């Protein structure tokens, strides 16, 4: 294991923060306290953290509609994010984006995305910038098993391969595109699609932080060194449904229980590091409590924050009124 104690703590802090953030959003949304559509990342935390811990601040990512985890893993402020979800003026996008459009360019976060398969073409551009300016940065495009069937994903993998761009494509396969199973909707194998375009392609157990981290490290280092793009097919699962309010009737009770009990990346991480004597249980519990407190505070502050006003409606576009 290559990670030192500090890095292990950081990994768990990040995963806990994502878990607490989206669990809290789940309850707030159910209580009718939050506007709009939200899609939660609970159960997939190891993917965002395992990938993003291999990135620096100048590297970029483009995310999906299920983007809160990626934003947190890339360093976006959770209070600013929460304010955005409540549509407040001091939100990370001034209340103009909402859950599906969280972006912070100063952190290399090029935006969550309301369009399935919308992000990877944008990642090509960031990667082109790094290639043209000869920096050794990389750009990572997240998408799901549903988006894997969009032409934009195939086009992006091909273009990255043709131009040998430092672009990493990360398919977070949680088994369902909305209510439709991967087994129904994906012809052939997602991994083979990457191979077909000449990408260095790997299948990864998304419940295991360490496997994600190690595989991501390998392909990201290669991309930095001019060896071109890669595809990671991350097998994962999500605790909640497609969106909040989804009754998830398309999944069986047994499957829901299995996802919660046996496929929880935080539990698996905790078990691995305590069994190996790398971190202590009380240390991990302290992290969990800190994350809880931080998110509770973010919600309190967000509820108190001001909404934008009519003056804000007409700014940030070029048309003058």
């Amino acid at each position, binding site marked *: 294991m290559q990670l030192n104690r500090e890095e292990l703590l950081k990994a768990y802090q990040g995963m806990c923060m994502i878990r607490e953030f989206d669990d809290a959003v789940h309850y707030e949304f159910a209580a009718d306290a939050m506007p709009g559509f939200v899609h939660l990342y609970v159960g997939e935390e190891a993917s965002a953290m395992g990938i993003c811990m291999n990135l620096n601040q100048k590297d970029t990512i483009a995310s999906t509609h299920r983007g809160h985890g990626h934003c947190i893993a890339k360093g976006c402020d959770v209070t600013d994010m929460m304010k955005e979800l409540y549509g407040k003026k001091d939100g990370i996008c001034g209340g103009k*984006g909402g859950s599906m459009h969280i*972006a912070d360019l100063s952190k290399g976060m090029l935006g969550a995305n309301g369009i399935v398969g919308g992000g990877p073409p944008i990642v090509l*551009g960031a990667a082109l910038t790094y290639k*043209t*300016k000869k920096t050794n940065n990389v750009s990572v495009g997240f998408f799901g098993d549903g988006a894997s069937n969009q032409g*934009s994903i195939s086009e992006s993998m091909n273009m990255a391969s043709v131009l040998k761009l430092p672009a990493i494509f990360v398919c977070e396969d949680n088994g369902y595109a909305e209510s439709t199973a991967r087994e129904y909707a994906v012809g052939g194998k997602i991994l083979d699609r990457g191979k077909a375009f000449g990408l260095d392609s790997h299948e990864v157990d998304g419940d295991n932080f360490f496997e994600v981290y190690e595989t991501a490290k390998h392909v990201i280092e290669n991309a930095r060194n001019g060896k071109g793009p890669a595809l990671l097919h991350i097998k994962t699962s999500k605790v909640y449904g497609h969106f909040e309010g989804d009754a998830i009737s398309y999944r069986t009770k047994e499957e829901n229980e299995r996802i919660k009990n046996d496929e929880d990346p935080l539990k698996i991480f905790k078990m691995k590091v305590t069994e190996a004597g790398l971190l202590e249980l009380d240390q991990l519990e302290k992290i969990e409590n800190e994350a809880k407190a931080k998110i509770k505070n973010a919600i309190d502050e967000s509820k108190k924050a001001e909404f934008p006003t009519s003056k804000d409606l007409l700014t940030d576009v070029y048309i003058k009124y």
Partner: protein
Amino acid sequence: MSLKTYREAINEALLQEMQKDKNVVVIGEDVAGGAGTNGEQDAWGGVLGVTKGLLKHFGRERIIDTPITETAIMGMASGAALTGLRPVAELMFVDFMGVCFDQILNQTAKFRYMFGGKAVTPLTIRTMYGGGLRAASQHSQCLYPMFTHVPGIKVVLPSNPYDAKGLLIQSIRDNDPVIFMEHKNLYDTSGDVPDESYTIPFGEANFTREGKDITFIAMGQTVEICNKVADTLKKEGKTSTVLDLRTLSPLDEDSILEAAEETGKVVIVDESYPRCNIATDISALICQNSFDSLKAGIKMVTPPHTPVPFSPPLEDLYLPSEEKVINTAREIL
């Protein structure tokens, strides 16, 4: 100053901006041509030769030939603009927006507003539009009303070589996404163009004729049609105002109202499909703001609401022409 074609003016704008700013890159299908072949490099320089010759100055690192993959081109250009380049992407024919519109409509057009003003997207999309080449339904459309409908992108329609150079340089330097639309029938037209670099500001329409009896409002190729009609009417003792909109977004509303009020008789000539097009939009604008100064109902010359036909006599019947414009003008003169 020297005589240059519309094609040469665009090429010169690209050359000069790329020399000035190393962040400017050209991205598109066959923008150089011959990639991966043993034959001529720069074989095409764009399908109608507009980018020909740039390769020898800037190499394949800045004149980037792509596969035929419009979604990836538009996405790559948008992402590159978002992260520090100033790309000029080519959408070969505007008709092909059908395969990549998401990246324009939902991505690049939205970044600045949706991200709370923090995103800068200095992207120029060059594209060919318009009829007259017998290119049929999928290679002859205008479609600029569809872009104009979308907030967050600027829409530029140069009508002559001078404007083409100045407006393209402005487009490249602009920090918002711009759709720069080149009428394929104009490539071989020529006019005086300064050799040095210059810009023409957006949102400033150009009065190409000033008169008292009737006003023509035009854009792109229809400007020259209206200029010729104005010259014919002058011989008959009627003077005309012709307004070239130059940019559809932002739109120079003040000049449109001024031009309409000057004569009280307005003909709008628009090559795009007649429903929800620029002519209907401007007509509404004039009615809302200058109704009392109108002396006749506003007239429009547009194609019929059909796809662009292939057969030469049909396409001639379809497109706005000098004859149609002058006949329409006479109805209200």
